[in-house]
Each structure stands twice: as C-alpha cells, then as structure tokens.
C-alpha cells in the first residue's frame, strides 16, 4: 500500500514536472482580429499616450511553438523571397536592430496585415490572423528579440545564418550592464 502511494505520488510529481507551455495547435482561423492602434513613431505631441497592447500579442510572443510555426510560414507565404532568411533583399533586413515601423508585436502584426507604403504588401484577408501573430513572433526572434530557450534552432537546410536561438540578446546588446 505504501509502495502504491509512493508510486502514485512520484508519478504525480513526474507528471507535474511535465508542465509545458501551451500549444494552441488549432488556432482559430477567423480572419482579422482587433484593430488595435499601432503608432509607428514614439514622437507624440503632448506626451506619450499609454500603449495599447493587444491581448493576443502576449500569448504568441516568445512562444516556442508559435515561433516555430512562424518560421515555417515565413517561407510558406514567400516572406523569405523578399527578406531572405532575415538579411533582406527586395525588402529590408529583419535581423538587424533597425525597425522602420516599430518592433513591437503589434507593430509587426500591423505591418504584415496592412502593409507599408514603400513596398510591403498587405496580407489582410490572405493570412489567417493567428498566423500573422505567429509570423510576428518569429520576425522578432530573427533579431534576438526572443528568449534563446524558445527561439527556433538551426535549419535542416543549407546553413545560411546563425540560428535564431543563437542571436545576441537584443535586450542587452550594446547596453552597459
């Protein structure tokens, strides 16, 4: 009996240790989410207004599964055709520290969904909204804006750049400790 209890307890403990991040393997395919305001500048006359976060951003950002999906979709929707594997080409580089239209999840989501005037096409109604969030999460990982424990690892393909989980952490890069 004591043995049984011990087994039960240890099994419970083991299972409890398996607490993993949630995988929303069947994201809702509904088109479009909130029309969250996403300013593309920090210059706001009269002082900064409070930043409106989209509640979806947090659930997709830094999530290993979503970033991994984002990486797959990045090729699937031909993002890689213009932005290469992050270094850029027809479109700007995504792995550097420069952000033309903002680096937040909300900004990147808006860039993909609505396009930008100098060549970024609008994928509104073409890519399901949750997949846009996955793409946004992956785009952030290209420049070290994702925990290395969650960012995608190296490709099965030709090695073309340091894998996303080996990018220098953008949060500390070039800043004094």
């Amino acid at each position, binding site marked *: 009996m004591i043995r049984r209890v011990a087994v039960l307890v240890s099994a419970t403990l083991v299972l409890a240790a398996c607490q993993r991040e949630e995988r929303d393997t069947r994201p809702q395919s509904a088109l479009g989410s909130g029309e969250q305001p996403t300013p593309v500048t920090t210059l706001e006359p009269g002082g900064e207004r409070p930043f409106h976060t989209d509640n979806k951003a947090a659930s997709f950002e830094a999530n290993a599964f979503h970033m991994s999906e984002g990486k797959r979709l990045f090729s699937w929707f031909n993002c890689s055709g213009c932005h290469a594997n992050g270094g850029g080409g027809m479109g700007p580089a995504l792995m550097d520290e420069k952000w033309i239209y903002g680096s937040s999840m909300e900004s990147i989501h808006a860039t993909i969904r609505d396009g930008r005037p100098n060549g970024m096409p609008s994928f509104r109604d073409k890519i399901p909204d949750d997949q846009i969030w996955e793409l946004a999460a992956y785009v952030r990982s290209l420049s070290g804006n994702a925990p290395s424990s969650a960012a995608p690892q190296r490709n099965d393909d*030709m090695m*073309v*750049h340091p894998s996303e989980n080996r990018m220098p952490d953008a949060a500390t890069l070039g800043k004094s400790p």
Partner: protein
Amino acid sequence: MKALPQLALTRVDAQRHTRKWTAGNSFGVILLVTLLACLPLLGAASEPPQTGAIVPPAAASPPDDGQWTMPAKNYASTRFSELSEINDGNVKNLQVAFTFSTGVNKGQEAAPLVVGNTMYIVTPFPNIVYALDLSRPGAPMKWKYEPNPEPAAQGVACCDVVNRGAAFADGRVFFNTLDGHTIALDANTGKPIWNTHIGNINIGETITMAPLVVKGKVLVGNSGGEMGVRGWVKALDAGDGHVVWTAYGTGPDKDVLIGPTFKPHYDMDKGKDLGVTTWPPEAWKIGGGNMWGWISYDPDLNLIFHGTGNPGPWNPDLRPGDNKWTSGIFARDPDTGAAKWFYQWSPHDLHDYDGINEQILLDMTWQGKPRKVLVRPERNGYLYILDRTTGEVLSAKPFGPVNSSKGVDLKTGRLIENPDKKTGTGKVVRDICPTASGLKDWQPSAFSPKTGLLYIPHNNLCMDEEGVEVNYIAGTPYVGMNVRMIPGPGGNRGAFTAWDVAAEKPAWSLKENFPVWSGAVVTAGDVVFYGTMEGWFKAVSARTGDLLWQFKTSSGIIGQPITYRGPDGHQYVAILSGVGGWAGAIVSGDLDPRDATAALGFVNAMKDLKNATTAGGTLYVFRLPR
C-alpha cells in the same frame, strides 16, 4: 550515340580553353605589376590584333556626331566613340569639369544622354529626369520631370530600384518608370507628351530597362523573373504611345508572335507552341522569360535582337522541360514583332542564367567567309558569336571560369550541362561557377573596331545552391532557391577582360576586388573607361590594359560611362556614381551580411562592401585641362 564524339571533342576544347584563360589572366596581372620595368617585353607580348577586319555594320553605326542619344551609343551597341581628343597619352591629365547630385541614393545604372547642348539623366526610383544645360558654366538644370511612380513598386523590384537609362529620338526623351509606365517627354521643355501604363506591380511587374527607339517605335520589356511574371516586349508608337505589338516570352505561338516567317536554326527550337509544351501544365503563365536588358537593331536586315530572361521559379525541379522561350535570344521584325529566329542559350536553365545581355552587331570574316555576326558575352559564361541572319552559333568560348556546363555542342546548339552541378529540391550543390548573377550580368561591354577587342566588365563568383519548395503568390517572389555566393577562383570578385573577337581568346584581363558592375566605353583615342564598386573611375589602355588614370568618386560605380563632344567643341567623359544594383544591394538596401542568402545570395560575396563605400548618386563629368 552519334553525337558523342562531337560532345567529347567540345569538352576537351572547353577545358583547354579554361586553362588558357587562367594563364592569360595571371599574365595580365604580371603586366600590371611590372609595368615600367618590362616595357619592351610588354609591347611584344601584347601585339595589337588585326585591325579593320571586324567592323559594325555602317547602317547600325553612323559616323560619330559627338552626341550620345542612346545608352548603347548606336544600334550596333558598340559603345565606341570616334572622339580622340582624350587619348592614351593625355588621359592622365583628366580633371573634373562639373558634378551634379541626382538626389537619389540608390544604384545608378543609367547612361547619361547628350543631345545638342543638353545632357539628360534618369535616376533610379523615383525615376526623376533631369536636363542639364551644357552650354552654360557648371551645366545648370534646364528642367526636371518627376513622374511620381507608386512607392509600392519598390517592394516588387528584384534587385534594387535601378533604371538603365533613357533614349532620345525626334525631339523626345523616352524612359520607363519602376511602376510600369513608359513616358515621352518634350526634350526642350520636359513636358510629358504621352504616358502609357504597361506594367502591373500587383503581379510583380516592374520596368528597369532603357527603351530603344526603332522606326518610330519605342521598344520596352518588363522585369519580374523573380516574381513569376510572364515576360514580354512591347512596341509603343513613338507618336502617341499606343501599343503596336506585344511579344511574350512564353506561351502559345500566337502570343510569342511566332508565325510562318519563324525559321530557327536548330531542331530544338522547332515545333508548334513550344512555349506551352516545354512546361508543366499552365506553368508558362508564371514562367518568366522577361526582357529587361538590351536590344540591338540591324537596319539592313530590318531585325531587332533581344534576349529573354530566366525561367521562374529558379528551382528547376518545379518546371521540367526546356522552358521555351526563356534564357534565349529572338530576332524579330520591328514593324510587326514577328519572330525570325530564336536560339536558347540555357535550355531548362538551372542557375538563373537570364539571357538579356547586350549583343554587339559586327561584320567579320569567319573561316574565310564574310559573315554578319552578333557577339554576346552571355551570363552562362560563354562568349557567343552567332550568325545574326540565321541564329547559327559559330563559336562559344568561356571568357572566365565555368563549371556549370562543359561547352556548347555546335552541332545541336545545345549547352552541355555538367550533371555534377545540377540543383534540385532539398539538394545542396556547392561551388557552381558562374553564379546566378552570371559570369557577366547586364553590365554592357564595348567594342573597338580599332583594336578588334571587346571590353567586358564582369564578375568572378561561384555559389552554393539548394532548391526549396515555393508557393506562387502573385506579386511576391517566386524563386525557390537558397543561394550563397563566394569569390571565384583567384579571390578577385570581378574582372575586366579584353576579348580578341577574331582569335576567340582574351588579349588581357584585369582583376578587380569587387564585381565590375559598371558598363564600359572605348574611344578612338584608344582609351577604355569603366568604374569599380569602390568608386574608382578608371581609364585603361585599349591595347594593353595599362591603368592610365583613375579618379575616386563619392560612391561605388555601377553606371554606364559615355563620352561626348561638348558645345565648346571639346571631348568630355561622363559617369554616374552611386552604388547599388543586385551586387550593391547590401549597401543601397542596408542588408545584413550575417545572412548568406540576403539579396538572393549576393550579399555573402559582398560582406565587406559596406566598409568600402556608401550609397550615393552623383554625376561626374571630366575633361582635359584648358
């Protein structure tokens, strides 16, 4: 089996030739280093080739009037000027006459034009046209015209937002905009006369080429071979801009303007609707074959000659078949567009070998017989000599390191592919030479009838390739290939080679650190001008390649030099400086060199360009001191 002995023979020939090329190349460097010490030896080694034997047809190269009315100088595309005030003796004294900022910091690939007392420049996107008054000190602006193309067009331009120049005819300046317009301006006032919208950016179409005006028609082709755009050439009426004919690069014969007058020389190009049957079902509709390069015109034969770009996507596994009529060359009647003959440089192209380079029209004696030929330094690495009346290949010799193919079978006309360098889905193939950008890309060469040499600015790069799956989404890239480029044999990424057309071998070759992405111009003063991506504008001897003069401009040079007689009766040389283009996209587009595949793999070979130059856009004009 019957073709085997011939095949083997060609292979041996190609190998032997490659060795010769390497020897010639290193010899060129020795010449440079030991310039003064070996002067007598030098003279003996570089015996000037037979002169007078090879000349452009008179009808396509009228006597030089000192103007520069089209980027290629004349219909024969020689880029040869008869001006000789600046010569190999005094070129060392050249000095700046004036400069002009184009106000656009993108790749400046255009050739300035000079007509009468006015110089015309067209910039990269936003495609501003400037007219400068050469008769007044400092060449002040006469007028400027801003077409205001759609900014979104920048997102579908494959390799920087370049423009390769305008064309002048009958008091009008004709040019194309990135967002697919052809515009005619009054050359005196800069007022638009007509504006025809012929390209659709929403399917990925852009226009970057310089138009050519032939018999009252403005010839224009589209870009978009990396976006699954179906290629075409259109003839627009120079008077009012309406489209007279359209010839597609893929599809049924009626779309390609193939009819009863079409007589290709080789069996591989004969058959009905090959533009459909040499593709998987419907793939020709998104198959490329764009015309974004150069057109030549022979008034005697009444034929225009133009190439066709690469098939799309790059991954060859996705389009089994010969993929007609991509990566080839057409001869057409300029009045109707009807095809006369076709030759395919790279059937079922494996490596993005667009066939759109310049063709120089020459008359020469070939194996004892006078022939009307067309000389083409092609992207796949071969210097072709074709009979321009029939499309027959007379000669195809590599002008640099080539391992993606093993020569050209002159009996069938077919490129002999090297199976070891064949790419495909999920397969990484290394050290393929030349690269997707070719042994030579769009950068036009120049031919001097005085020396019989063709001066070829070109690349020396190799690449690794991996085919990947790709989805066609209209208006987005359709490539399906991971590419990373590396310097070619010797480590110099570029070269400037003088090719002896009659002897079918290089006379000399200069090594350059970066790809030579600028055009060339050669003069009766025996001087050749070209630019480097560091920003040096160089004058070298047309006979020996000796460096005679150089000037460091503000940015890397990828433009086309020209030379003209100014209103004061003296000779001037002009070049646009401003790095960019595919090779310079790392600078003009601020790309990240940590990604080897950036700019379709070109960035990997250009990692240090950001340390060598910065973006710019400045016209430089030089003259001798007064």
